[in-house]
């Protein structure tokens, strides 16, 4: 009855409204379409109402319920089936009679028990009692139709899958057989999965199968899909982002590897990624070997690509394992023949027209490919060997070079050196404005310099300001020396000779200060971070040969860095001996160093360290050990729970603090709910501010795989009354959103940069710089604001030292690595980069110990596209960035001060405002000319627009106040041709396109990083782009590549001071 009246009301309403709309329609034909669609909708509604009104409708289910009580079974059945039809309307009435229907279900003699169960299930569903509803739905058997498209069925299916997943999970947890699982439940879930598969909804099927731990169904879903490769990639993705338990994830991945191998055309890149996660070096080694042996050049390129991809994940121990498992090239080479030289020399001849630099480069790669001594040894060896063998040995040598990281480090170094665009004026401004006596700001400036030039080997600033530099004494001297390590980071061959003047002189009690000696050892560690094969022995000897605690400190840190994650027992013992001297300074470093050595091994050493932490009196040692213990459980997830429990329950706040780091590192990037809950709990309930701060900070590590989440989760904490919590919140955002330029993150940090408490400002400034690194002003105008804010803080005489230091460090991070690096905690394949995470974790310790700031250099990764040919050289190759060049260009160099530093501020403002105006105008212009400007035509566009972009680059370089802004009023092209190797910032990656007619085709369509290029015209002579860095410097005129031009006047003035890695010269002579 009430429904009937409702329907009638609806009709009258709709008629009125329709009339209104038609009138409206008559008045205005502006939004004709809109009104038309509305009126159509109403006519439909109207129709629906009319059908409802003519066919009468029962107003109550009481009749049917009464009929249920009849004696005759036919009547009961009739009532029941009608109730099933009407339950959607009358469930409130039926709910009171549920016991009657339940008794029907339980009545063994009643032949329609399943129908009764279905009705009850529906009623419970409406009542929100999903558990009861599900159990009755199970009772309904086949009557519960999984394919029905109703809310009831959808909800219950979700519930059923959840239930089943949790049962399966429990069964696995308790290691019991899955006997407890209701077979009916299993049947429903299976029916559901089968249906998904048959309907072609493979992704859903895979997701549910993984959730339910039904690997058999997962396999079935993948195999029956039409796009097996896509599905496998999707599966890898979800197993990383949604499978929380490590063991189970391994199981899934193992299955995937199995499927991959069965495919007719296996995707070796993905297989190797899986195998790396599973820590199975044998598998990777055998795949690489197979590819190398096949003889085809393409396969070899693929193998090299795999090796580069593996390198990117920075898993040193694993890479060493793979390398050792590959057949030994030396044994082959010494007995047969190896030298890659013949082929190299052939290349020399073919590309004879080029300058001698190409020869240099080729030779440079040769040194890496087949180690120098080897070549010389076999120089006169027999030449008449099987050419296949020769090629194989050569390839083997190359791949070992790649796996050892030498190739990638060398190329990165060259890239960073040649593309260095750091702005020395920023440093100069800072240097001038910082008071002489303020040693904190003084050394902060040194840190900033080191970070700005990380990996570029440009130490002009230091050389120009030796006087100023010499004001650093004691620990400041230590960190000033260590800073050289950051600048020369990756300079493997030259590292030791560079640091030689500062290193402890063996034997003679040299006059060098222990601080600079310690710093130099630390610097060596930074140079060789994660690739310390060559330097380990030296560092060990230095450690043993001294008992000055400052040197021990440096040596411990250096060893830890160089032998990161290798779990080398001997080194561990050496470091432990230092620890047991119970010296606060050396012990702290020893604690961290032990952790670095044992990263991610979850070894029993942790309990040893814990025991000593309880014994010792020195807080510094305890803190070092606490962090060390945390590092040992890196990435172990659940395995680490016992240790975490032990640490977080400790009486000592410093150990609880270590516990926070343990959670952070064990669950790094998993976004594990349990870990987040635990951290949030400690963030609000611990009595120690240090622990609270760290707990919040640790959230950043747990969430870095999902940076969008972090600002939301910590937003409340960032408004806490407790400054330590606010500080933690700032850094958490900084860590997890590092390098993303995420808008929410910036909005959250902005108010914190003007917090009332000085150290919160410090943290917020640093975090902001981490978030904004490599974000250009064109992408987010707040970057410019932030730069000006930093400048203001540095110049402000009354600013607190703490926040001043933050601002100085922030300017360093913002322009890190000559602006060609970003902070990245995830590799492109979404694996965590162990070095980077560890680097940031130790970096966050700078709160207690400033020299640890340098650890941030571990998390830098160059933003470059470096294409390599078969000889692992960098050929000239062009590709397209389909976006406005201004979006991703380098930040404009700041204007040189005309008179005093005070003038700088207004000029900075001027240039941007002019630019903003220009951009507005430009956009208008561009719209008009866009049609002809965009895609000029692929072939000719290459040369013509290449010129345009080059000329623009020149404008940018010619540091004149007015000319850039004026010239830029002309329309900006909507794309840019980049030349290999090129700077490709993360935000730019999606705009990268490869030209179709290009001579080279990348093996893997990667927009950044190392990419092997397949040469389509192998017979033609190759033009190489990137030559060895120092040779460019030696003859700046020979700028055949854009690299020379891009050098820019900023750094050109002092490049002559550059140390020149001599190998290239030695070799070519």
């Amino acid at each position, binding site marked *: 009855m009430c429904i009937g009246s409702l329907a009638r009301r609806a009709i009258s309403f709709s008629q009125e409204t329709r009339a209104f709309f038609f009138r409206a329609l008559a008045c205005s034909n502006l939004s004709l379409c809109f009104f038309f669609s509305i009126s159509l909708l109403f006519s439909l509604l109207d129709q629906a109402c009319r059908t409802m009104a003519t066919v009468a*409708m*029962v107003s109550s289910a009481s009749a049917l319920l009464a*009929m249920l009580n009849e004696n005759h079974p036919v009547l009961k059945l009739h009532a029941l089936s009608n109730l099933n039809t009407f339950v959607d309307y009358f469930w409130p009435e039926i709910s009171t009679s549920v016991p009657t229907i339940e008794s029907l279900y339980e009545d063994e003699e009643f032949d329609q028990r399943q129908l009764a169960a279905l009705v009850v299930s529906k009623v419970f569903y409406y009542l929100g009692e999903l558990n009861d509803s599900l159990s009755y739905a199970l009772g309904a058997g086949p009557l519960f139709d999984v394919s029905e498209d109703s809310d009831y069925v959808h909800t219950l299916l979700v519930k059923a899958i959840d239930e089943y997943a949790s049962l399966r999970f429990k069964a696995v947890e308790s290691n019991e057989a899955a006997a407890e699982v209701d077979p009916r439940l299993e049947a429903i879930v299976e029916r559901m999965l089968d249906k998904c598969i048959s309907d072609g909804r493979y992704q859903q099927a895979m997701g549910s199968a993984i959730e339910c731990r039904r690997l058999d169904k997962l396999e079935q879903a993948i195999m029956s899909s039409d796009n097996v490769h896509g599905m496998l990639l999707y599966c890898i993705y979800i197993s990383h982002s949604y499978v929380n338990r490590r063991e189970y994830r391994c199981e899934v991945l193992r299955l995937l590897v199995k499927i991959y191998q069965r495919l007719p055309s296996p995707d070796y890149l993905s297989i190797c990624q899986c195998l790396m996660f599973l820590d199975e070096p044998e598998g990777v080694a055998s795949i690489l070997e197979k590819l190398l042996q096949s003889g085809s050049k393409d396969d070899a390129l693929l193998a090299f690509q795999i090796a580069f991809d593996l390198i990117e994940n920075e898993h040193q121990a694993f890479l060493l394992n793979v390398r050792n498992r590959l057949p030994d090239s030396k044994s082959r080479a010494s007995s047969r023949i190896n030298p890659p030289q013949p082929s190299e020399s052939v290349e020399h001849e073919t590309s004879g027209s080029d300058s001698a630099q190409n020869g240099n480069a080729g030779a440079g790669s040769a040194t890496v490919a087949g180690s120098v001594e080897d070549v010389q040894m076999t120089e006169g060896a027999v030449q008449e060997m099987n050419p296949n063998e020769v090629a194989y040995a050569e390839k083997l040598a190359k791949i070992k070079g790649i796996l050892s990281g030498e190739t990638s480090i060398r190329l990165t170094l060259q890239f960073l050196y040649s593309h260095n665009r750091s702005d020395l004026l920023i440093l100069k401004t800072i240097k001038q404005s910082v008071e002489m006596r303020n040693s904190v700001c003084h050394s902060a400036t040194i840190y900033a310099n080191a970070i700005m030039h990380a990996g570029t080997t440009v130490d002009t600033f230091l050389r120009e300001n030796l006087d100023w530099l010499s004001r650093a004494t004691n620990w400041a001297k230590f960190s000033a020396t260590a800073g050289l390590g950051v600048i020369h980071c990756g300079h493997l061959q030259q590292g030791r000779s560079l640091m030689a003047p500062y290193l402890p002189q063996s034997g003679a009690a040299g006059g060098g200060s222990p601080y600079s000696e310690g710093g130099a050892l630390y610097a060596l560690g930074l140079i060789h971070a994660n690739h310390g094969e060559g330097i380990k022995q030296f560092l060990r000897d230095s450690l043993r040969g001294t008992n000055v605690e400052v040197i021990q400190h440096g040596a411990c840190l250096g060893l830890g860095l160089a032998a990161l994650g290798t779990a080398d027992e001997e080194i561990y013992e050496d470091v432990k001996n230092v620890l047991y001297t119970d010296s606060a300074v050396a012990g702290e470093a020893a604690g961290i160093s032990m952790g670095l050595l044992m990263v991610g091994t979850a070894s029993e050493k942790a309990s040893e360290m814990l025991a000593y932490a309880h014994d010792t009196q020195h807080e510094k040692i305890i803190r070092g050990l606490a962090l060390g213990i945390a590092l040992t459980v890196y990435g172990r997830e659940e395995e680490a729970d016992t240790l975490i429990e032990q640490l977080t329950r400790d009486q000592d706040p410093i150990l609880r603090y270590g516990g926070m780091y343990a959670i952070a590192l064990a669950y790094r990037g998993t976004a594990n709910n349990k870990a987040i809950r635990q951290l949030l709990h400690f*963030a609000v309930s611990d009595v120690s501010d240090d622990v609270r701060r760290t707990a919040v900070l640790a959230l950043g590590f747990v969430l870095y795989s999902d940076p969008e989440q972090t600002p939301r989760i910590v937003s409340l904490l960032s408004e806490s009354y407790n400054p330590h919590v606010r500080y933690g919140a700032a850094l958490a955002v900084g860590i997890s959103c590092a390098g993303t330029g995420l808008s929410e993150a910036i909005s959250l940090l902005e108010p914190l940069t003007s917090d009332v408490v000085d150290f919160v400002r410090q943290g917020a400034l640093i975090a902001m710089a981490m978030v904004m690194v490599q974000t250009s002003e064109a992408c987010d105008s707040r970057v410019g604001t932030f730069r000006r804010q930093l400048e203001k803080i540095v110049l402000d005489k009354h600013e607190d030292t703490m926040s001043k230091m933050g601002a100085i460090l922030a300017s360093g991070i913002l322009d890190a690595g000559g602006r060609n690096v970003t902070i990245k905690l995830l590799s492109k394949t979404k694996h965590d980069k162990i070095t980077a995470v560890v680097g940031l974790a130790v970096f966050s310790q700078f709160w207690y110990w400033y020299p640890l700031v340098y650890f941030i250099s571990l998390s830098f990764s160059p933003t470059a596209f470096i294409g390599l040919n078969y000889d692992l050289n960098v050929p000239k190759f062009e590709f397209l960035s389909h976006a406005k060049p201004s979006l991703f260009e380098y930040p404009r160099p700041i204007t040189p001060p005309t008179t005093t530093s005070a003038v700088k501020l207004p000029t900075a403002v001027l240039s941007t405002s002019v630019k903003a105006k220009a951009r507005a105008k430009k956009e208008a212009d561009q719209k008009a000319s866009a049609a002809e400007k965009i895609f000029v035509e692929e072939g000719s566009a290459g040369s013509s627009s290449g010129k345009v972009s080059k000329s623009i680059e020149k404008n940018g370089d010619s540091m004149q106040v007015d000319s850039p802004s004026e010239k830029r009023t002309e329309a900006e092209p909507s794309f840019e041709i980049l030349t290999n190797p090129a700077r490709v910032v993360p935000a730019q990656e999606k705009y990268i396109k490869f030209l179709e007619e290009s001579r080279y085709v990348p093996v893997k369509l990667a927009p950044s990083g190392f990419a092997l290029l397949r040469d389509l015209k192998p017979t033609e002579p190759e033009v190489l782009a990137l030559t060895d860095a120092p040779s460019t410097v030696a003859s700046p005129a020979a700028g055949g590549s854009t690299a020379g031009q891009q050098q820019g006047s900023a750094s050109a003035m002092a490049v002559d001071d550059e140390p020149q890695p001599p190998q290239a010269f030695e070799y070519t002579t």
Partner: protein
Amino acid sequence: MDPRLTEVSQVFERFKAAFTRNDIDTCTKLLSQLKVMLTEFPSLPPLFKESPNAVHELTLARDIYEHAVVLSVKCEDQDAFERDFFQLKPYYTDTCGIIPPSPQEYPILGLNLLRLLVQNRIAEFHTELELLSASALENPCIKHAVELEQSFMEGAYNRVLSARQTVPHETYVYFMDLLAKTVRDEIAGCSEKAYDYLSINDAKQILMFSSDQELSEYITEEHPEWEIKNGFVFFQKAKETAPCKEIPSLQLINQTLSYARELERIV
């Protein structure tokens, strides 16, 4: 004409014949047969499928259920009455546009009201009443029930009892008899609260029993907790004072402590 419909009509004729003969056994047997047959007509509630014979079918079904209700009164079977009435009700409420109203509608609705009164289900009684239109309330059958309820509520039990003489329909007699018992239960409930004890004579008079025998039977049956002693009926057993509630001290302490703790933790 649909053969099933003819069959139903024939069975119904036989039922009516038995009904007039007061042959109750045959009636119930035929009735259950009829009900099963009715389930085959989709035009009946709750489906209301449109069919050429819908009007005929609906009328027939309504007639059958009306008879069923009356039969249940004759059998003095209250459960059956309730069942049949509910099955009949959709024909009154939901078919108004399709078939003409039945002359039996108001007597049967009144009968139902009376039943609710007898069963002392006052809330439902009023719910039913609210659903009726103003004109229906004027109908003598309904009016009778409403007046009865008013007297019942006022406590004018004598008026209730005397109303037996003025029943508007012969089927009402059965319920009127039952009503007397309902009244007695009410009185018993009230006196239990009002008095500690009563003399047997007074009790007999109040509860409208003619002999001591009946009174004691009633007591043993309905109120075994009453006690007959020395010519008095004692009620006090029923009057157990509920123990005053204890203060949940532990719970309160816990709560306060947890508040204090939470205050400490405020971020």
